[in-house]
C-alpha cells in the first residue's frame, strides 16, 4: 500500500494569493460600479493585504 504524499502548501504564497484575489475582486466591483472605490476604502484594503502577506511570511520563516 503506497502512502499518499501530503505536502503542506506554501503559506506565504497562499496568503498572498488570497490577498491579491481580494484586491482583484474589489477592482472588479468598482469597474462594474457596484462599489465606489475611494482612497478611504483602498488604503485599508491595501494595508491589510500587505500586512497579511508580511505576517504570513514572518510567522513561517525558518520552518
Amino acid at each position: 500500500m503506497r502512502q499518499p504524499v501530503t505536502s503542506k502548501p506554501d503559506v506565504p504564497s497562499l496568503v498572498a494569493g488570497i490577498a491579491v484575489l481580494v484586491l482583484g475582486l474589489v477592482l472588479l466591483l468598482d469597474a462594474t460600479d457596484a462599489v465606489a472605490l475611494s482612497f478611504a476604502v483602498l488604503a485599508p484594503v491595501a494595508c491589510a493585504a500587505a500586512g497579511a502577506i508580511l505576517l504570513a511570511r514572518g510567522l513561517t520563516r525558518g520552518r
Partner: protein
Amino acid sequence: MDDRNEHIHDENEPERGEDPAAEDPTTEPERGEDPAAEDPTTEPEPTEAAEPESDLGGDEPADEAATVEQQAEAQEPTAEQPEAARPEDPRGPQSPAGDEAPTEPIAAGAGAGAGGGAAGGGPAAAPPPRRLLRARQGRVLGGVCAGLGRYFNTDPVFFRIGAIVLTLIGGAGVLLYLAALLLIPKEDSVAQTAVDGDSVDGRSRALVIAGVAVLLVIAWPFLLGGGLIIWGLVIPLAVLVAAGVLVWWLVSGEGPSGDAGDIARRAALGLGLLVLCGIVAVGGAWAAAAGGEAIVAALVIAAGGAIVAGAFLKPVRWLILPALALAFSAGAVSAAGIDLDGGVGDRYYNPGSTVDLRDRYELGIGELVVDLTDTDLPAGDTPLELDLGVGSARLIVPDDVCVATSADVGMGYAGVFDADNEGIDVDFDEQRTAPPDRSRLVVDAEIGVGELLIGHATSDFGEFEADFHDGRDRLDNSIDRGMNTGCDSR
C-alpha cells in the same frame, strides 16, 4: 692568552654548533671584544650569542638594556593572547606564529610577534600577531567595521556610525569604506592562505594598488566637488542598492549576507524585480485610466489564482510583488477617478457667447483653463462640468456671476474663491444662491490628482493668457480668489 682563547673556543664549539646564530661569523669578533668573554667563568651563554642585539657592539650595559627591551617586547603580545586566540580568528592554531606576519604590510605588531616567537624559544609559545582583517562574523556589508571593531576591541557600531556620518557630510565615508574594502584582506582569504601556504603575490598587490589609485582618481572630484554630487548620485545609488537588497530579501528570504558579489547579485535581482513592478504598475494605471479597469481587475484575479495554485504545486513568489503593483496602481487610479478620455496636453477655452459654452470640459492629463470673462451668461442657473484626470483646472468667471460648486478631488487641492480644501478624497461642496436677476454658474468638478481653482481674473490675467498660448512658463497670479461677489450674502 692565545692558548686560553683557543681553549675557550674549543669548549664552546659543540654548544654553538647547536645554535645556528652562534655560527654567524659576524658575531664572533664582537663577542671577542666583550671583556666578559675573556673570563672563562663568565663565559656568555650560547643563547646570548644568538640574540641579534649582540650586534650592538659588545657594550655590556647596552646589551642588558637591549635584552630587557626585547623581553618587554616579547611579553607584550603574550598579554594580548586571549584576544588573538579568539575562536573566530582563523589564524588560531593552524597559523604558525610569525610565519606570515612579516610579509603582510598591514599587520600591526607583526614584528613584535615575530620577535616574541624567537625569544620564546618555539612556535608553541608564540602568540599569533594581531592583524586588521575584514571580519566574517558580525559583518553587515564587507566586514570592514566589524574587523575594525575587533582589531581595536571596540563595538563596531561606533565605526558604522562614523562611516554613515562621513558619508552624509560629504561622501568620504563611502570612499574610505571602498578603500578599506580593497586594502584590508578578508579573513577567509588569510585563513586559506595559511592553509595553502601561499602568500599574496605581487600581481594581487599591484591590482589592489591600481584599484586604490583608480578610486582616488575617481574620488577627488567627489571630495572637492563635494556634497552635491554625492547627494545626487551616490546616495540615490545606495538607496537603490538597499531597496534592491530589501526587495530580494522580502521575495526570496536571502538577506544581506555573503561577500560583495552576493550582495550585488541580490541587489540586481531586487532592482530588476522593482523595475518589472514599475513597468507593470505604470501599464496597469494607464490601462485603468483609459477605461480598461475591468481588464486589469481580471488580470489581478488571474494572478491571484496562479499564486494560490502555486502555493500547492510550485510556489511562484516572484509573482506576488508584480501582482500587488498592478492591483495597487489600478486601485489608486480608480480611487482618484482619473480618466484619460479627454486627452493629454494643455487646453484653453474662452467661449465668446453662451452658444459656444459647453456643458462639459474634460482633460486627461495637463492644464485645463476655462475663461468665461467674455461670456455673457443668462440670468438663472447654468450648469458646467469639469473633468480632469491629472493636472490643474482653472475656471475664470465674471465678477457679477455667482458660482455654486460641488467638487470631488481624489488627491490634491480645491480652492474656490475664499474657501479651500486639500488632501485625499477631497469633497468640496459650496452651494451659494444668487438673486433672481443674476447668473449662477453651477459647477460640478471631478479632479483625479491635482488642483481646482475658481475665481475672478486678475490684472495679470492677460499676461497669463499670452504665456499660455505661447507655451511659456506661467505665473500663478491669474486668479483672484477673493469673494464670490455675484452671490447673495451669507
